[in-house]
């Protein structure tokens, strides 16, 4: 049984894109499309979630992601409370569940959860009252479903469809929740060829079983790609004996204009941000004509509005 | 205490016995299997019709959480739980707090266990002091 769906197939929580039906993903993308123009109005707001309380529960700090959720919630007229638990009660040893119970007692309707442990959002979702929805805003290495969805939205906007694409995901797949969500979404939406391109030290065991083709050579992996997704390389990866140096990584797996020329001429370049310029991507590419990195950020708000609207609809408090 | 276990299917893997037969217990020992010993008057008869009678189970790893983790489970409750599981002998790993790396700690645990209902407790000793893998015990 999928804990994310109600018995009649409606979205109950958004924890991972793994196992969500194609129709659900399309519904979210279509709904996001209809929210796109809200950002262009004089009053950038619709009253859909008026009176609802949304709590941003960030056990792991991220101003960027928290802000996009906050803007999305406010455009839906929800009340938003930000809790940076990484620096508050959690350090005093208050258990996650106590935090969640306390907030639920304050009549929360939705929790947006980010946590450094894989499965944390599942864990919270298992314990909340039936009227509360949980949105995973990133858990450990496991999933970042709204990022995966906004990437799909971006691809659809620029490429029109999914069924004829070759998508290459380059970099630290092992530690990337974004990559996992992208892979599940791309395969569910019918992309015929999803590639992961990385040294063996940055790929998880048995990654092929997620339905991807593995490349260890950037030139070969980029050849014929319609979409190139670059992943962020965390600096601490240099310490764990996974890579010798950032310079060597950039030389063999960094995206430069010359490398990008190996992909299709109209290929788009994506990055979930924040970028390490000169480590995984050259500034010339990041700011170049094929980059859609800034539109990704814009679309992120409409996609998160869609997710919140679909979750809140029909769950009368 | 004399106990008569009547009409059970007695399975003893070590002697390859598997038959429906009576077992007679007296003075902490098995007095007879099959025919009752002369003058055997049971204090208690257990009807084992349809049940299996086998040797008490031996479990090679049971954490009794004593010393050190009594808040997680008490020796008493876990000894009883083991008995409820049919276990009559158990080996108890030394990853207690402090670890079982001194004779006094082992003797204390054995003494505590002896005074409770439940299985025979065989502590395992820590191979190294404080289980730190530096000094032998």
């Amino acid at each position, binding site marked *: 049984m999928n804990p994310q769906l109600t018995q009649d197939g*409606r979205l109950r929580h958004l924890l991972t894109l793994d196992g969500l039906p194609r129709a659900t993903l399309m*519904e979210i993308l*279509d*709904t996001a*499309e*209809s*929210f*796109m*123009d*809200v950002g262009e*109005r*004089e*009053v950038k*707001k*619709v*009253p*859909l979630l008026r009176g609802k309380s949304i709590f941003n529960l960030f056990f792991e700090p991220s101003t960027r992601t928290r802000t996009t959720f906050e803007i999305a919630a406010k455009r839906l007229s929800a009340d938003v409370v930000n809790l940076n638990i990484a620096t508050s009660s959690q350090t005093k040893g208050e258990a996650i569940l106590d935090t969640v119970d306390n907030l639920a007692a304050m009549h929360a309707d939705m929790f947006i959860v980010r946590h450094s442990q894989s499965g944390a959002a599942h864990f919270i979702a298992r314990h909340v009252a039936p009227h509360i929805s949980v949105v995973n805003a990133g858990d450990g290495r496991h999933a970042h479903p709204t990022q995966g969805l906004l990437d799909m939205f971006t691809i659809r906007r620029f490429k029109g469809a999914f069924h004829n694409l070759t998508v290459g995901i380059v970099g630290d797949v092992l530690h990337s929740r974004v990559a996992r969500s992208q892979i599940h979404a791309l395969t569910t939406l019918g992309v015929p060829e999803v590639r992961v391109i990385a040294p063996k030290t940055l790929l998880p065991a048995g990654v092929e079983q997620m339905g991807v083709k593995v490349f260890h050579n950037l030139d070969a992996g980029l050849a014929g790609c319609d979409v190139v997704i670059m992943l962020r390389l965390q600096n601490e990866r240099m310490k764990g004996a996974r890579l010798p140096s950032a310079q060597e990584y950039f030389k063999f797996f960094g995206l430069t204009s010359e490398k990008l020329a190996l992909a299709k001429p109209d290929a788009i370049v994506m990055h979930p941000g924040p970028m390490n310029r000169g480590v995984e991507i050259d500034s010339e590419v990041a700011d170049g004509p094929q980059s859609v990195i800034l539109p990704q950020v814009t679309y992120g708000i409409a996609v998160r509005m869609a997710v919140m*609207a*679909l979750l*809140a*609809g*029909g*769950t*009368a*408090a | 205490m004399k106990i008569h276990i009547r009409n059970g299917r007695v399975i003893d893997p070590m002697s390859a016995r598997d038959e429906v037969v009576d077992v007679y217990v007296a003075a902490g020992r098995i007095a007879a299997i099959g025919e009752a010993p002369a003058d055997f008057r049971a204090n208690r008869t257990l009807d084992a019709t349809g049940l299996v009678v086998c040797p008490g189970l031996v479990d090679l790893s049971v954490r009794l959480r004593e010393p050190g983790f009594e808040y997680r489970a008490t020796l008493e409750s876990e000894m009883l739980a083991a008995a409820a599981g049919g276990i009559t002998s158990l080996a108890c790993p030394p990853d207690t707090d402090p670890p079982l790396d001194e004779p006094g700690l082992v003797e204390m645990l054995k003494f505590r266990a002896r005074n409770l209902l439940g299985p025979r407790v065989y502590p395992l000793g820590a191979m190294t002091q404080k289980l730190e893998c530096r000094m032998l015990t």
Partner: protein
Amino acid sequence: MHASLPEVDSLIARLADAIAPILTPATAIVGIHTGGVWVAERLHALLQCALPLGTLDISFYRDDFSRIGLHPQVKPSNLPFDLEGRAILLVDDVLHTGRTVRAAMNELFDYGRPASIRLAVLVDRGGHELPIRPDFAGITLAVPGHQNINLSRLDDGHLTLSLA
């Protein structure tokens, strides 16, 4: 009692005649999805309006959202003119409780501050729950609460009313 419902084309013609005197070149016609847009398209053509037609999808403004959720096919609202200080003629097919019109007005104000809003409906069926009345109505009928009156469009573009 409504064995034969009135013919839609004649209702729209009657509406257009009533509206014509107040219309200026700066007036914008805005139809509410879906039936209101059909009626507005006809009025827009009959009245030969200068400004392009506006359309509103009020799904994001419904007050029953938390009960029934989001409509599966939300269409983007399209208001191809500046609302600020403009006279608006809001068009819907059937006026019942008034909640749709309330939602539409809320949405209009999120795009800007119009000078005035007038309401034209094909049918005012009664059962109002809000202090909202049409400025122009093709026909006024007393339809019992348990019944629905619907506008539908045939493949040839012909509009008909039906009672269910």
